[in-house]
């Protein structure tokens, strides 16, 4: 008399194709005559289907989450059209900035936002070659690839205000303002190069994210400091909110 475990073992070996030819023939002839065995096989298949379906759904969720993160980090290549569009968007933003805010229509964040022009990339030493490359991509409006590079550099230099700042701008360009606000918030207000800039762009990112209440609070902080380099802009923007 076979134990229940052994019976299940036999079903497994049949489904896995691990039976010898003779064994298989015997099993299949029994299947024809033994309805109990047929039911057992059917039940067993249902259980396996359950396990595989559940695991497959979980695996797919994981795969998609990973791919999504990779996409955010810019590993996925972007096509030339996209770059061209991004570049023209940058030019448009620039034009709005110089022509002054247009009235009506578009939202305030779009009126006030233009990406930071970036840092000079002419002088590069071996050690910051990668940063230079990233900066070149940034300036060309290739924010996805730039971001991927900046993120890599971040691993070696987690506290760099420069990296925090430009990653923040990239995320704004990629329409992920909540990430930008989070990054800008980590930059110390004392940072000579980026402290005040980060405060301003954080306010814009909050606006982009439709978080008007926090944006106003952030702008108020800037407006309260008469010598803040974005003092005037913060004031005029506050009036419109």
């Amino acid at each position, binding site marked *: 008399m076979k134990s229940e475990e052994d019976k299940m073992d036999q079903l497994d070996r049949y489904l896995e194709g691990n039976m010898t030819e003779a064994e298989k023939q015997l099993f299949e002839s029994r299947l024809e005559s033994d309805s109990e065995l047929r039911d057992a096989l059917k039940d067993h298949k249902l259980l396996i289907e359950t396990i*595989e379906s559940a695991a497959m759904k979980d695996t797919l969720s994981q*795969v998609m989450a990973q791919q999504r993160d990779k996409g955010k980090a810019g590993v996925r290549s972007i096509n030339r059209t996209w770059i061209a569009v991004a570049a023209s968007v940058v030019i448009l933003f620039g034009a709005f900035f110089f022509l002054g805010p247009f009235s009506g229509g578009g939202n305030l964040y779009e009126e006030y936002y233009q990406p930071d022009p970036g840092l000079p990339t002419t002088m590069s030493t071996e050690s910051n070659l990668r940063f230079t490359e990233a900066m070149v991509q940034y300036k060309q409006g290739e924010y996805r690839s730039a971001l991927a590079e900046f993120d890599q550099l971040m691993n070696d230099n987690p506290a760099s205000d420069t990296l925090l700042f430009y990653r923040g701008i990239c995320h704004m360009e990629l329409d992920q303002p909540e990430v930008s606000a989070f990054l800008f918030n980590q930059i110390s207000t004392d940072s000579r190069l980026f402290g005040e800039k980060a405060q301003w762009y954080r306010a814009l990112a909050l606006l982009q994210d439709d978080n008007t209440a926090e944006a106003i609070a952030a702008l108020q902080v800037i407006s309260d400091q008469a010598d803040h380099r974005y003092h005037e802009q913060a004031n005029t923007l506050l009036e419109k909110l």
Partner: protein
Amino acid sequence: MAILTMNRKAYRTDQDLIEGLKRNDSKALDALYQMSFGQVKQWMMQNNGSEQDAEDIFQDAVLAVWKNVKEGKYEKKNNVKLSTYLFQVCKFRWYENLKSARVKYNTKLDSEMDVIDTDGMNEISEQSERVKYLHQLFHQLGEKCKSILQFYYYQKMPLAQIAEQMGYTAQSAKNEKYRCMQRLKKLHQN
């Protein structure tokens, strides 16, 4: 394990992909995603969908297609490329979704749907519902049972290796596997 080290480049043809899906290889899912998701997302965005909608629909569709591949039903759809088939399934699912939500969709979508071979599409919808049902059922099991059953039936890991990994003797691993299958059977009967 050979399956784990196989890289994406191995998935060059539909036949490779189908074999991969049959083996439950996550790299095949990866390849499918890279091949099709962008296209699906773009189309969804043009048809009242959000990025989240695109992800939901795509996930549903991949699972349904995977099931059809597993059950040999896909191969019967002779000469339809896997990516084409997957895209059609996504379109159909989204179309159904819009219809049931009574969202205003453009008539362009209507005419597009006319071209799709809707034969077997209702079965597809049933397949994705079925996966969701089986998924929640399986997750009612305890962690140990889920692990041992996934290792054996999903990852096709030999029992000896599972025993080693989970700290069982060969015999107790076999007993555990049996016990967990019985539990799962109970869940189905409830």
